[in-house]
């Protein structure tokens, strides 16, 4: 790479079960103002803007066009949008900065899952001819994955319960998290997954500012340099995948340089407890790595923003001097079909 690019600021909303009183623009505006305030930048100073969201969550076509108004987009801006989690919007912005066409980028994403029944809505992601008509929901698919792991001897129900409990315990330190503290593991939702193995359904938004080279140093006292970032997708059909493994995560991590030196911190986007088991294995994370100190997706899983939040949380730890080398992971699709890995570093102190 010929150009160093860093995350220089991050902001997120509190994640809430419902936000009936807020439009998407109203949910986004405070986050956009907050992230800009952290750098002193104004919208007009930003070289490129990229966002991520999903029309299906909003329940209407072109929903992002209304949200764009929240940026205050006048005069016209260089701008793009991915119908994906904001982590992929960050990837697009990163490539834009690599070309030298811009020195700063604003990245944001949001999702209001409360508008419908998320488990039903996510079935619309599946093969529309053969699978979607059967309406297999997201929890049922995750349960297949969890059962495959248990059958393979990779985990058991009590180990999964411990992941949920730990996530919500550490989330007591995260004021934005939706579920915090002692949350009962609960009854089975779909065997072997209990309530505590599943993410809360919530609404939220996040925003990040990227900057290149000297600009990053001007805007942030300790920029989180993106040392590598890569993403990979796997086959869609569950029957042709080994659900106990995540080769796409491993490959993305390899390409992002994650295995070159150990990381001290990892933010994993694992909406279901069993997925943390899969990701830890694929990413070769041992107990020396602090995983999901934010509480992760089991404490707050705002659709389309949760992946960007992982990058933001990892970067914020570097900004605060709590990490020197952090890994951030985002996922999309059923049972970890698509995965992104970013490696962030702070300069030596």
């Amino acid at each position, binding site marked *: 790479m*010929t*150009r160093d690019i860093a995350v220089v600021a991050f902001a997120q909303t509190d994640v809430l079960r419902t936000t009936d009183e807020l439009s998407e623009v109203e949910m986004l505006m405070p986050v956009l103002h907050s992230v800009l305030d952290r750098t002193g930048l104004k919208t007009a100073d930003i070289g490129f*803007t990229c966002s991520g969201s*999903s*029309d*299906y969550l909003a*329940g*209407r*076509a*072109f929903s*992002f*066009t*209304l949200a*764009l*108004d929240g940026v205050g*987009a*006048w*005069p*016209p*801006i*260089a*701008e*793009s*949008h*991915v*119908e*994906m989690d904001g982590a*992929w919007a960050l*990837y*697009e912005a990163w*490539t*834009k900065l*690599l*070309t*030298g066409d811009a020195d700063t980028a604003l990245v944001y994403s949001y999702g209001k899952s409360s508008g419908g029944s998320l488990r039903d*809505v*996510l079935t*619309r*992601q*599946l*093969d*529309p*001819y053969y699978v*979607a008509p059967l309406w297999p929901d997201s929890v049922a698919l995750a349960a297949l994955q969890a059962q495959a792991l248990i059958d393979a001897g990779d985990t058991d129900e009590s180990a999964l319960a411990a992941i949920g409990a730990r996530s919500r315990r550490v989330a007591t330190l995260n004021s934005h998290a939706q579920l915090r503290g002692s949350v009962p593991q609960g009854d089975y939702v779909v065997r072997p997954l209990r309530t505590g193995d599943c993410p809360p359904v919530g609404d939220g938004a996040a925003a990040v500012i990227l900057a290149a080279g000297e600009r990053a140093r001007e805007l942030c006292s300790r920029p989180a340099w993106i040392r590598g970032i*890569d*993403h*990979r*997708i*796997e*086959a*869609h*059909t569950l029957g042709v995948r080994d659900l106990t493994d995540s*080769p*796409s995560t491993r*490959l993305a991590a390899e390409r992002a340089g994650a295995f070159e030196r150990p990381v001290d911190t990892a933010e994993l986007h694992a909406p279901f407890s069993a997925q943390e088991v899969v990701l830890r294995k694929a990413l070769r994370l041992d107990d020396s790595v602090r995983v999901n100190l934010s509480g992760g997706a089991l404490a707050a899983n705002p659709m389309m923003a949760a992946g960007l939040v992982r990058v933001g949380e990892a970067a914020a730890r570097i900004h605060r001097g709590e990490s020197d080398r952090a890994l951030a992971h985002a996922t*999309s*699709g*059923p049972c970890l*079909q*698509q995965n992104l890995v970013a490696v962030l570093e702070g300069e030596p102190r």
Partner: protein
Amino acid sequence: MSKEPVAVVGIGQTKHVAARRDVSIAGLVREAARRALEDAELTWADIDAVVIGKAPDFFEGVMMPELYLADALGAVGKPMLRVHTAGSVGGSTALVAAQLVAARVHGTVLTLAFEKQSESNAMWGLSLPIPFQQPLLAGAGGFFAPHVRAYMRRSGAPDTVGSLVAYKDRRNALKNPYAHLHEHDITLEKVQASPMLWDPIRYSETCPSSDGACAMILTDRAGAARAPRPPAWMLGGAMRSEPTLFAGKDAVSPRAGQDCAADVYRQAGVTDPRRDIDAVELYVPFSWYEPMWLENLGFADEGEGWKLTEAGVTELDGDLPVNMSGGVLSTNPIGASGMIRFAEAALQVRGQAGEHQVERAGKVLGHAYGGGSQFFSMWLVGARPPQS
């Protein structure tokens, strides 16, 4: 900072029709992708990443269809990005793919855009529920007709200009085997006699609803050197966005379009587009947008665009041919329409446009727009690589 030059070495389209009932969505996109690979004489293994675009997911009723399409597009084990920037998405998707090459993140990228409108009903897909939109817009034509009216009033254009554009584009489409509408008995009188839908827009001055996909293979300098056929080189590309509605918006000639074109021209060293650019594939879903965009993009002074159309300058054998392929007026798989403009521009400079090829196509502009004339994406391609 130097960017890697980006070349188009493969182009594939499906035959665009009202309903492709013989293929699934996956079958449709694979058809276009395979044709692009064949054109480039490459295999799936040569592709480093896939960038896919389409307009709203509601048009087919599949949420984030790139997940389901990963297998069909040979993307398994590779990076796959999904772009969505409303009607401009086909263009934006190509630009995001080009950016991966320009940034030297990937060497060879497959980019594809599609719409299979027959799977659903685009009219319903576009009918936003109250309170998000006022209830009386009656589709895209209802939204754009007042802006056409404003253009006619401001420019003094005679009301015959729109039908001239439609007559020209539908005749051009007869020379393009992939175009949706092939109206062999088209006459100017038939266009003028077609029913008035949204005054001043007549039925024959509107785009059809199509099923179709368009794919391109973009590659770096090394990839271009290996290409079996002449590549098209990207000389400039840009996107610009502005809000849909706000006090002071010029809906006839949005500033985002002007700024986007200016950025492309700056990158490509174009100082006089009318002189320096040989042909244009414009996003014209309603005929009157040809003269409107000619002004917006600097090919004519304000109020003068219709004179180019009326004088025959934009005809296939004119001095500045516009929509040689038949344009959006003849083929509109919405999410793919922008990429078709970009791909047709590339076909022209490669000399591969067949019967609708124009002579001296050294530099050709591809243009797309979306939303309420608020999202713009454009690229300028040339037969020779960029200097520097």
